[in-house]
């Protein structure tokens, strides 16, 4: 081990990077993927995100500045206390340099605070709340893949334009659901629609019939599902059972992932309009990356969260290389300076508040007869340019944004 280390340092020195290499703390760049490994978000994030991070490290050659890149992972069980404990253990004892993914906004908000205090980089892909780049922003925290504002304006805006001007929300009762309901409500109101009511259900509910009946009674044209994962799937499935769509009301799955569509089956999911920042079948580059991913992930297509983890880890490693150090402040600065370019991102810019500006796609789930093969689920309705997809910086509540 010592020998290889010496060799690596020597090699790095020979390449003129000697000084920089000395600045990698603990002689390893360790990235911790923290997400739901066993619960309702495990297919959206879970091992797929770990795989994506590993692929990024491999594509980077397995080392940066002559030091090994190591990927570790943990299961936060969607509980902020469990997640915080793992994060503290990682940062204080296990020499982890950056934490990645972290779905479940309540957990992500806790980790954002911890990484901010301890000065480490936080690469958020799985969590949605736009507060992560709003009042809870951090100089070392990056919101990579999507957020509730993007979902709200993408799906919400499109549906109001199509005539769905009265909304009732079925909201998951925690930080994410509240943020999504708030942002979508704002988008609906801005487009001259109105919100007629909402009901908040506990996370991980199995029976939605009672809530759906309340939504049905509201006579709203659109029932907005401000929930995710298994909750969304069960809502959609049971809405079909209770004849809600047949009765003329429309469902808006505000956060639907491709794995959810797979799980529902096209027969139930057809026609749903969703907003995502990645779909495997967009172009040759996305197809090539996804093919590689699927081969290693039991044939399952990557979600936008998986793709985002790869993109974030890759950019983080590139920034370490360019900055010549893994010190979080300097790396974060470098990350903001460099444009993000990879298979899912074209000239992405990172704003002061930590928001990665990328295009989003308004997608519609295909009819069963339109699908030509496994995972052929979406048709692209339109591309939403980054400046329209995300909250304008002038409206940001982030204290890091200097207002003129």
């Amino acid at each position, binding site marked *: 081990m010592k020998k290889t280390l010496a060799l690596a340092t020597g090699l790095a020195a020979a390449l003129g990077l000697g000084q920089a290499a000395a600045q990698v703390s603990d002689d390893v760049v360790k990235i911790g993927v923290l997400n739901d490994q066993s619960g*309702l978000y*495990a297919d959206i994030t879970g091992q797929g995100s770990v795989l994506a991070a590993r692929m990024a490290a491999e594509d980077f050659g397995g080392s940066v500045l002559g030091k090994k890149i190591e990927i570790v992972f943990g299961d936060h069980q969607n509980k902020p206390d469990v997640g915080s404990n793992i994060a503290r253990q990682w940062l204080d004892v296990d020499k982890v340099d950056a934490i990645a993914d972290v779905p479940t906004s309540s957990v992500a908000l806790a980790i954002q605070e911890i990484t901010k205090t301890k000065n480490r980089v936080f690469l958020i892909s799985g969590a949605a709340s736009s507060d992560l780049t709003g009042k809870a922003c951090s100089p070392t925290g990056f919101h990579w893949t999507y957020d509730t504002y993007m979902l709200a304006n993408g799906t919400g805006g499109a549906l109001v334009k199509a005539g769905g001007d009265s909304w009732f929300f079925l909201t998951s009762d925690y930080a994410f659901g509240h943020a999504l309901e708030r942002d979508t409500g704002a988008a609906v109101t801005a487009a001259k629609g109105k919100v007629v009511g909402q009901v908040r259900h*506990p996370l991980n509910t*199995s029976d939605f019939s009672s*809530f759906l009946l309340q939504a049905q*009674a509201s006579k709203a044209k659109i029932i907005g599902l401000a929930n995710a994962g298994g909750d969304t799937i069960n809502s959609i499935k049971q809405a079909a*059972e209770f004849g809600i769509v047949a*009765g003329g009301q429309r469902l808006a799955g505000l956060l639907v992932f491709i794995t959810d569509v797979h799980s529902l089956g096209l027969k139930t999911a057809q026609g749903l309009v969703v907003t995502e920042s990645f779909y495997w079948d967009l172009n040759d580059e996305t197809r090539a990356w996804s093919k590689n991913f699927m081969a290693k992930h039991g044939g399952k297509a990557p979600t936008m969260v998986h793709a985002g983890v790869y993109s974030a880890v890759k950019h983080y490693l590139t920034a370490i290389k360019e900055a010549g150090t893994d010190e979080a402040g300097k790396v974060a600065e470098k990350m903001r300076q460099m444009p993000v370019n990879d298979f899912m991102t074209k000239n992405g810019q990172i704003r002061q508040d930590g928001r990665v500006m990328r295009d989003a796609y308004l997608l519609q789930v295909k009819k069963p007869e339109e699908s030509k093969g496994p995972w052929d689920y979406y048709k692209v309705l339109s591309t939403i340019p980054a400046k329209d997809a995300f909250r304008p910086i002038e409206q940001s509540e982030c204290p890091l944004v200097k207002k003129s």
Partner: protein
Amino acid sequence: MFELLGVPPQALFGQLLLGLINGAFYAMLSLGLAVIFGMLNVINFTHGAQYMMGAFCAWMLLKFLGLNYWFALILAPIIIGAFGILLERLFLRRLYNLDHLYGLLLTFGLSLIIEGVFRNQFGSTGQPYDNPLPGGQNLGFMFLPYYRAWVVVASLLVCLATWFVIERTRLGAYLRAATENPTLVQAFGINVPRMIMLTYGFGVGLAGLAGVLAAPIYQVSPLMGSNLIIIVFAVVVIGGMGSILGSVITGFALGVVEGLTKVFYPEASSTVIFVIMAIVLLVRPAGLFGQTR
């Protein structure tokens, strides 16, 4: 239109009916638990996993063998029951003379393993299962899907039949006697170990049947059992451990209570049952229908 506590009465009727439907699942699952606990004194923590296996069994029968829902309704409980018998022969049998806790630990461990295997194989989002009885009837105050109506009827029939067999037939009498005094019953020439084994198989089969009934409503997912099992245990505790009629009545009643909570204060709908459990335990530690032993 007059309103009751801010909710129109039609909506209230609808919610009551929905509560009964959900109560049907609680009743069927807690019935299985009560039978197993009453007869074997085993706290069967694998019940949730076996419910999940019932749903997966139905899904696999359809996907791999092309057998539809109605076949699954008969086949899946038999298959899952047989699996239960296997568990009983291999593991549970060795624990009858030990404290309850050992059985609880064993079954809890087994359920973690079973769920882990399924999650690893099928992922956590689950598989779709088509509704065999699409459509429904507009009752004026709510839209009642045919399938949900069928679930209530089926579950009531199963609960009544089970109660009748155990409380009103000769076989049931043997069973109850064997629980009280196995040695004596054996002396009369009745094969007690086999009877116990079949009883466990039956209880597990009930869980499997509930799983098949649930498949078209919920997503067939490895997590479906663990989401439900804790609530069902609360139902059993409230009804009185081992009381068959108690578990059925409590199951339906709590379904209704939960349904009403979803209208008046939805945020608390996942906790209301545990609040009731705490109160019942304070006032009647043996449960509403239980007898102190």
